[in-house]
C-alpha cells in the first residue's frame, strides 16, 4: 500500500516536473494533500535529475553552436557523392544483396512446383476450384493498371531522350535502335488496348493514344528528312505537355496501386 502510494507521488511529481503543461495542471491538487517530507525528498531527487539533464542539454547546445554547419553539410554531401561513386563502381553482385533475391526465387519456385503438382489440369477437378468473378475482375483491373504504369514509365524515359536530341545528333545507329524501341512499345500498346475498357483506366486511354501516335511518327523517321521531322515530334511532345500528362497519370495510378 505504501509502495503504491510512493509510486503515485512519484508519478505526480514526474508529471509536474517533466510533463506537458496540461499534465502539470492536473498534479497540483494531489500534491498539496501529501505530507511535506515525503514529497520534498522525492522532489529533491527529481530536481537533481532535472539539473543533470539540463547540464547535458547545455553541453549539446554548446557543441551545436561551436560547429561550422556549412562545412558539415558540404562534407556530408561530399561523402554521399563519394559513396555513390564507389557504389556505382562495384559490380552488380556487390551492390545488390543477392541473399534475399535468391531466397525469394526459391520460395517462388517452391510455390510454383506445388501449384504444378496439385493444379487442376482435367475438367473435373477444374470445376471444384472455381474462382469468383469479382476476384477475376479485380486481378484483371490490377494487371491493367500495372501494365499501363509500366508502359507509361518506359514511354516517359524514351520520349524524354527523344526530346533531348539536338538537330543532327541522331546517328543512323541511334535511329535504328530508337525505331526498334518504338515498335516494341507500339506492340505493348496493342496489348494494353483491351484494358482501357475498364472505367478506371479510361482516362489513361487518351494519353496513351497520344504517346502511340508519337511512336508511329518515330517509326516513320527517315534519315534524309529527320531534322524537320524530329523537330515536329519534339514540338508535339512540348505543345501537348505530354511529359506532364504522363507524370500526373503515373502518379494517379501509383497512388491507386498503393
Amino acid at each position, binding site marked *: 500500500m505504501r509502495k503504491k502510494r510512493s509510486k503515485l507521488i*512519484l*508519478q505526480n511529481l*514526474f508529471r509536474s516536473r*517533466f*510533463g*506537458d503543461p496540461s499534465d502539470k495542471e492536473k498534479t497540483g491538487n494531489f500534491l498539496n494533500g501529501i505530507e511535506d517530507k515525503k514529497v520534498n525528498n522525492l522532489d529533491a*531527487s*527529481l530536481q*537533481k*535529475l532535472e*539539473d*543533470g*539533464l*539540463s*547540464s*547535458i*542539454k*547545455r*553541453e*549539446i547546445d*554548446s*557543441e*551545436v553552436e561551436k*560547429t561550422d*554547419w556549412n562545412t*558539415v*553539410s558540404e*562534407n*556530408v*554531401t561530399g*561523402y*554521399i*557523392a563519394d*559513396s*555513390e561513386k564507389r557504389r556505382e563502381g562495384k559490380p552488380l553482385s556487390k551492390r545488390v544483396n543477392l541473399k534475399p533475391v535468391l531466397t525469394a526465387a526459391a520460395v517462388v519456385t517452391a510455390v510454383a512446383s506445388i501449384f504444378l503438382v496439385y493444379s487442376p489440369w482435367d475438367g473435373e477437378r477444374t470445376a471444384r476450384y472455381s474462382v469468383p468473378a469479382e476476384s477475376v475482375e479485380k486481378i484483371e483491373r490490377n494487371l491493367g493498371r500495372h501494365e499501363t504504369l509500366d508502359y507509361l514509365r518506359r514511354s516517359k524515359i524514351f520520349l524524354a531522350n527523344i526530346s533531348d536530341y539536338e538537330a543532327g545528333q541522331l546517328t543512323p545507329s541511334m535511329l535504328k535502335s530508337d525505331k526498334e524501341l518504338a515498335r516494341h512499345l507500339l506492340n505493348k500498346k496493342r496489348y494494353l488496348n483491351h484494358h482501357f475498357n475498364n472505367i478506371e483506366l479510361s482516362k489513361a486511354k487518351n494519353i496513351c493514344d497520344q504517346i502511340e501516335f508519337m511512336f508511329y511518327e518515330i517509326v516513320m523517321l527517315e534519315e534524309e528528312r529527320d531534322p524537320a521531322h524530329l523537330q515536329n515530334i519534339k514540338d508535339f511532345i512540348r505543345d501537348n505537355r505530354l511529359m506532364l500528362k504522363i507524370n500526373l497519370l503515373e502518379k494517379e495510378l501509383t497512388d491507386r496501386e*498503393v
Partner: protein
Amino acid sequence: MPARKEERKTNVLELERDVILRARTGDRAAFGEIVYFYQKRIFSIGYGYFMNREDAMEIVQETFLKAYQGIKHLRDADKLSSWLYTIANNLCRDHYSKKKRRDWKEVEMNESHAEFIGKESIIKNDLVSNETADYLKRSIMKLPHKQKVIVIMRHFQELKYKEIAEILGRTVGTIKRLHFEAIKKLRKNLEENSE
C-alpha cells in the same frame, strides 16, 4: 525555447515540398538543402545517444547517406522529418551494438561499456557537479533503446509527447509510460550513486 520552436517552424516553411520532390529525383543540390536544415537535429540525437562528438558526426553522415539512397521511396513528403529521425534512431542502435562488441574486446571484462564511453565526454558545467552529470550520462546510455531515444527527444530536443509519438509511431500514452520508466531508472541510479 520559443526561439527554438520558431526556428523549427521556419525550417518547415522554408524547406518547401518541392525541395523534397526534387531530392527524390536524385537532385543533389536539393538534397543538400535537406541536409542543411536537419543536420543539427540529427547531430543532437547522435550526441545524446553516444555523448561524444565523433560518433554524433558519424550518425549525421550515415543518416543522410541512407536518406539519399532511400528518398525516392518516401511517398509522403510531410513525413520527411520523422523518417529522418527513424533512420537516425536505427543507426544509433546498430552503431551502439557494433561499438559495444568492438569495445568489449578492448576493455576489461569487469568494466561496463557505458562506463567506458562515459569517460570520453567532459562536463563543462559549474552548477551540477561533474560527477553527477557524468554518472547521469552513463545511466542514460544504459537505458533500453526506446527509453533512451525518448529521453533525448524530450529533454535535449524539447519535443512534445505528441511529436515524439508521431515520430516513433506510438501512442502518446505509451511514450509517457516509457518516459516515466526511464526517469524512474535514472532517479534511482542517481540516488544509489549519491548514497
